[in-house]
């Protein structure tokens, strides 16, 4: 837009040599701006822009890959509202988030506050807490599959055996499977949350602590009256990003439980995968992914408002 205001003569004539020289630097800047931005912009247009439109169109069709997509109005959406497995999956996501996120946020905050102090070897501890986040979720899920193994040699059952509780079928029991999944999400989720808390702690004014030291405040008082209030923006921020990430849980479920037993651990993304790539109902699965998108847009809207609100500092 700046280019058009500074060179009003631009649309007058075909670009003759002297004319181009006059508007030279600006024109070159605009031209290179476009050239450098184009590959990435075109790529996202082709691989994200077109697919999102196609997903919406497909969601209005019956499409099973073999025959052509056939427009069926909003039948898929009506069907989703009657699909108890889909809503079971949504509910599971809500439970995993509702139980897992507060616990891992609390632990992350405790770790961050402690690791923000000048303790010997804190770098090593930070790495240990952060490693589950850097490791592929597939590998993480394989490790926990082995820990939860129903054979008495699975670590969990070995430990339980010591205190006299007999081997429990963690991942095949309808009541134990979801808690078992939640435990893994907590373990894997602490690292990133701790990191964001640590970054936020750098911004907390040290003088507040010094002043409260003089007033004789103890560690717990300082934690609840200075640290927690000062970290409120970070807390909201972590909460919303964790919620968004939670609705994209897939690998963990694929390896650990395949949504079972009896959909006790099914989640939205895994349900979409089942509908599309196991049942080949691409139209219905597209409608499910549009619903997922809408849920995430709502969450993102909140996150943008929150991030926008904390941008000032």
């Amino acid at each position, binding site marked *: 837009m700046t280019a058009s205001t500074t060179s009003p003569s631009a649309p007058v004539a075909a670009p003759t040599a002297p004319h181009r020289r006059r508007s030279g630097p600006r024109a070159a800047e605009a031209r290179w701006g476009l050239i450098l931005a184009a590959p990435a912009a075109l790529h996202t247009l082709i691989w994200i822009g077109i697919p999102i439109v196609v997903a919406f169109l497909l969601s209005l069709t019956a499409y099973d890959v073999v025959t052509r997509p056939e427009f069926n109005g909003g039948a898929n959406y009506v069907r989703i509202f009657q699909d108890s497995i889909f809503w079971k999956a949504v509910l599971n996501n809500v439970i995993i988030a509702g139980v897992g996120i507060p616990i891992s946020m609390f632990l992350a905050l405790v770790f961050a506050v402690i690791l923000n102090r000048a303790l010997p070897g804190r770098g090593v501890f930070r790495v240990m807490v952060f490693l589950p986040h850097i490791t592929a979720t597939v590998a993480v899920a394989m490790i926990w599959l082995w820990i939860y193994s129903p054979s008495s040699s699975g670590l969990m059952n070995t430990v339980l055996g010591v205190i006299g509780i007999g081997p429990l079928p963690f991942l095949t029991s309808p009541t134990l499977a979801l808690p078992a999944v939640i435990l893994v999400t907590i373990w894997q989720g*602490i690292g990133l949350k701790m990191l964001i808390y640590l*970054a936020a702690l*750098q911004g907390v004014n040290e003088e507040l602590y010094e002043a409260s030291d003089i007033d004789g405040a103890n560690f717990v008082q300082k934690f609840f009256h200075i640290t927690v209030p000062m970290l409120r923006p970070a807390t909201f921020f972590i909460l919303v990003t964790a919620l968004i990430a939670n609705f994209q849980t897939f690998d963990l479920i694929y390896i650990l439980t395949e949504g079972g037993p009896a959909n006790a651990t099914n989640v939205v993304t895994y349900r979409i995968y089942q509908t599309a790539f196991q049942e080949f109902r691409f139209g219905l699965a597209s409608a499910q992914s549009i619903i997922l998108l809408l849920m995430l847009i709502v969450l993102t809207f909140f996150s943008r408002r929150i991030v926008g609100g904390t941008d000032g500092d």
Partner: protein
Amino acid sequence: MVTDSPTLSPAADPTRVDVSAPGRHPDRSVRQTSLRRQKRVGNALMLAFLVIAALIMATPFLWMALSAMRDPSEMAKVPMPLIPQDWRLENFAETLERAPFGIYARNSFILASAAAILNVVFASACGYSLAKLRFAASKFVFAWTVACIMIPFYATVIPVFLMVRHMPLFGGNSILGQGGIGWIDSWWALIVPGAVSPFMVFLFRQFYVGTPTELIEAARLDGVSEFGIYSRIITPLIKPGLLTVALLSFEAGWNNFLWPLLVTTSENLRVIQVGIASFRQEATTDWHLLMAGTTMAAVPMIVLFLVFQRYFVQGFAASGIK
């Protein structure tokens, strides 16, 4: 948030605080010694808590590594000894015989490297353009990029899969994209759809915003071409940014699962995460081999992280922004 890394900033050393203290009120020194003693006790308690907590956090990894080297007969013992009685490194060799983890690792390495290189090249160009150059569509491209960050892959995976499958004139497809398998089971499918990440464009823009515009103007006066300014003058200033994006893209490529699972069918193109997932079905009872395979899938990223910690941490702290 992008530029300062939490783990890097030098420790807030209490002794250093004392050194800078003399200028302050003299009465505080007495109080500070008792405070320091209190602090020492507190630190010891926290250290004890940390050691226990960190051990619990690390237990799954230790369990994986230990189990990868156990003898199968030991796995069946009740109770199983916590420490392997004889360390069997042969487990790794045996795992390699049962499934071609070497090929899986090679494929993952190619995929992850391609993601790193393509993101660094194309996302940096776009990020620089959005941060420093004025052109008509600039605002629109930026808004579009931010919008793309918010669209989850799971919302577009079905159309992307269909586009790849119906890619015209590939894999036996006609010009209308019918009749064959298109890009399915090819490097095209693995690499092209994820070649540029909108988030990496955004991250690059943030890195470029911090570079001096005066340098660009001076270079223009000296007659350096616009492309030369981007490639030879400004981009060298953000080497840490380049490394951050390269490592984050590599990590995402190495850890990717759903997409390679959907578009590859042959063993020759299978990546390591899909490899261990399918190895699991074949060797469900051979936990020592499964853990050896899992170790091979996990350890390269762990090593890379340990070496380039600060860049990962910077990138992840910044990725919180999305």
